[in-house]
């Protein structure tokens, strides 16, 4: 189902957390609400499912305004960060709870529970209690409970935050698989850019209660609208270098780095900020800068380097593990200026 937030506003007392947000979520799409902690992601999610009343604007499911419809009647499935399983009920009773509330027959409930348990691969756990399950299994039960009554939209609030690294990887693809198999419209709230990029069709990146950019993951990675977005996406993160550009010649305040850019704003001196992703800085780069390796992190297939310029400015580089440079080594690696991101002094992309 298509979800539309129209000038959605939410305040708690005098604190306005979300101000006039517009967001359109297409039918069958999985969208990520990505942003730093406290930017209002959960607030938005809770408004969609009806836990929070909206303070202004409208929320539409399909064509229908649900802003004033109570949670119980919205048909939204929610997976909470803590899973919120009912500890005194078995897995089967947990999953069947929404159906029991709807007074469906026992046989019908059993059939649907079995079907959904099959989908999320927990068919053999139905008689257990939540306390007897691992984190990943609890997550699957929570998903099953959210999906069993065929909701119009599935909301996931930081669903992977409580899992260890290996399970997180596994559940990432599992959640996506289940979403694709059911074709359900889904909203994933996360502060982890890897989750957002790997699981979702589109990302809406938020900062301080506003949506900064909405785009497909790769598009957002390549063409961020601001330094905030550029800094949020990518691991290892992008390095920013502040300086001035005159006639296409960029130089930092200390003069430690000087490159010529494919950007010309005339002879006038202009403050500018470069964003250099680690994959565009290394031995093969076109425009060399002098620096010293201060940190090496071997990741197996790839190795990460921190390179300090003369003035202490850090650039990051990621290379295949065949490179054998070590800490303290002086290097003269180059920057691939064609792929540099340029921002003005307010952080807006040029």
């Amino acid at each position, binding site marked *: 189902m298509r979800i539309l937030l129209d000038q959605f506003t939410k305040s708690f007392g005098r604190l306005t957390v979300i101000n006039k947000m517009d967001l359109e979520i297409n039918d069958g799409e999985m969208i990520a609400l990505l942003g730093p902690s406290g930017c209002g992601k959960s607030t938005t999610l809770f408004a969609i*499912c009806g*836990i929070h009343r909206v303070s202004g604007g409208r929320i539409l499911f399909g064509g229908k305004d649900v802003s004033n419809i109570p*949670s*119980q*009647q919205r048909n*939204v*499935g*929610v997976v*909470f*960060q*803590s*899973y*919120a*399983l*009912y*500890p*005194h009920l078995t897995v089967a009773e947990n999953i069947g*709870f*929404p159906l029991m*509330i*709807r007074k469906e027959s026992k046989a019908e409930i059993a059939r649907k529970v079995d079907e959904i348990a099959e989908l999320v691969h927990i068919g053999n756990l139905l008689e257990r209690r*939540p*306390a007897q*399950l*691992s*984190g*990943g*299994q*609890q997550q699957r039960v929570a998903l099953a*409970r*959210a999906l069993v*009554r065929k909701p119009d939209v599935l909301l996931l609030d930081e669903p992977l935050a409580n899992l260890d690294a290996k399970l997180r990887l596994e559940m990432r693809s599992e959640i996506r698989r289940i979403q694709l198999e059911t074709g359900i419209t889904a909203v994933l709230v996360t502060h982890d850019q890897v989750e957002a990029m790997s699981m979702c069709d589109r990302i809406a990146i938020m900062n301080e209660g506003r949506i900064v950019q909405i785009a497909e993951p790769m598009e957002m990675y390549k063409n961020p609208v601001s330094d905030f977005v550029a800094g949020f996406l990518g691991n290892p993160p992008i390095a920013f270098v502040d300086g001035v550009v005159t006639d296409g010649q960029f130089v930092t305040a200390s003069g430690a780095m000087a490159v010529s850019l494919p950007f010309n704003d005339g002879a006038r001196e202009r403050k500018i900020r470069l964003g250099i992703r680690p994959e565009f800085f290394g031995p093969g780069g076109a425009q060399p800068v002098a620096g010293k390796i201060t940190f090496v992190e071997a990741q197996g297939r790839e190795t990460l380097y921190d390179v300090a310029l003369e003035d202490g400015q850090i650039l990051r580089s990621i290379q295949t593990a065949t490179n054998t440079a070590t800490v303290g080594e002086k290097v003269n690696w180059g920057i691939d200026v064609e792929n540099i991101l340029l921002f003005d002094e307010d952080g807006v992309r040029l």
Partner: protein
Amino acid sequence: MTSNYRSWPMILALGVVTIPLVLMYVYLFVDTVTNTAPGSVVPHEFTGEHWRFLWETLPGRPSIYVATLNTFVFATATTLIVLAISSTAGYAISRLNVPFRAFFLAGVMVLHAFPTVTLIIAIFLILQFIGLYNTLIGVILVKAALELPFGIWIMKGFYDTVPWEIEMAGIQDGASRLTVWRKLVLPQVMPAVMALGIFSFLAGWSEFILPLVLAPDNKVQVLSVYLAALIADDNNFDMALFKSVGVFYVVPVIIMFLFFQGKLMSIYGGGTKG
């Protein structure tokens, strides 16, 4: 069972310390079925006469069975009222945005700190005025009211530990707030409800001062008042009879304890961390 220290010295020490207590209990029981000559510590004959209150009504006293029934009604009714109100009020205070919540909470605590005796004259006057003096209902209401602050506090504390998300999940699953409370929240605080129930019942069973002042009549007399009247009666002073009634009075408590101790210990412990 293995232990990394020897247990017999500890058992010995505890045993020695406990002997006087054990002796008291043994004599309490032995004295109810025997007669002992004055000045002796060894009984010289068995007798059932100290338990005569079971088959004959003592002069000037109500039947023991009436008193027992009254005590039972008193303790049960108090417990039910305390449970019903604490489990709902505790929830409201824990979860809903009640106005003056902090004030109310502090007030409840202060109320509980009030010694009953300081209130009893006022309560007596009020009951007399509204016609509930010398009735079980009156004393039940008073006892329940005095137990409530404690009950509400205990229940609030337990409700506070139930995760907020569980309720929100219930709401999302389509349940009304009432259903969420009944089906999802109440089961999580069941251990508290059980414990509070047992404590209220025992408090009611052993309550003395309120029934003594507010419902002293034979019709509505409870066991504690019955017992006290026995020892206060200088004309027919009978220590062995008094002890027998005392044993009779505690037996239900012991039975209840035996029945519930297993339950209280085995109450399901929640938690969903994985």
